């Protein structure tokens, strides 16, 4: 229900990819699409292989695409994929708002006012 209009397996890969702070940082750096994996690797206190592995996880989740330019492979963040995480949270919010509404209908006593529209986002 919560994840109805998203591809299931893809969503699991997406959450997995986003669960790591290094990978989230890679997404930030790769937004311009101008960095190669080796240039990217220089930014982190870990081996090239380790960074490559993170990039592979991001690529599998569809969060990053690779493009060959000459002898380099450039990585670019796919913001549409990042937005799917937002969409998943929006669906979770809609689900729980509906549940809370139904809960309050089951309880006796007066209720006043309307539910606020939209949430505060951090």
């Amino acid at each position: 229900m919560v994840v109805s209009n998203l591809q299931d397996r893809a969503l699991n890969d997406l959450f997995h990819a986003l669960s790591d702070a290094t990978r989230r940082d890679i997404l930030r750096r790769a937004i311009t699409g101008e960095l190669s994996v080796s240039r990217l690797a220089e930014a982190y206190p870990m081996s090239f292989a380790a960074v490559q592995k993170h990039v592979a996880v991001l690529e599998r989740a569809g969060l990053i695409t690779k493009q060959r330019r000459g002898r380099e492979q450039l990585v670019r963040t796919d913001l549409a994929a990042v937005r799917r995480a937002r969409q998943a949270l929006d669906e979770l919010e809609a689900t729980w708002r509906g549940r809370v509404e139904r809960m309050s209908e089951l309880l006796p006593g007066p209720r006043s006012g309307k539910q606020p529209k939209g949430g505060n986002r951090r």
Partner: protein
Amino acid sequence: MTVTSVEQDLDRLTLTLTAEFDAPVERVWQLWADPRQLERWWGPPTYPATVEEHDLTPGGNVTYFMTGPEGDKHYGWWRVTAVNPPESLEFIDGFADADGKPSEDLPTTTVQVRLIANAGGTRMELRSTYDSREQMEQVLGMGVVEGLRQSVGQIDALLAE
């Protein structure tokens, strides 16, 4: 006003929601603890839930199915990780196939509920977090919810660019 605040945290894939009810804590707890009441609010009106197993003890399971307009059934489960009636409940919430076997493809969420007496009514604080696979395995294996995340707001900053 029922829902008084909602916050989304993209880095933590977490929804935090606060609601106020005009009923005592014990009464609101019954909405969770009584399977017949639970099934009246868990699923949307078009997908009402039928609760089968309902064991609110640590390590206990709640199993249910939701029936769609075409008679289609969608199975789900909770694994209770912590419970302190009538004040708090924590569980993993997941989907299952028709045999009740937990789905490996669909993400689970960890749900934490707290009920706090407030001005004659009840404040319900709820956190729902999408689990990554590692966390899910960790949670199911050890019964502990441990955040691995560090910096806050990375993904939001990304979408703002």
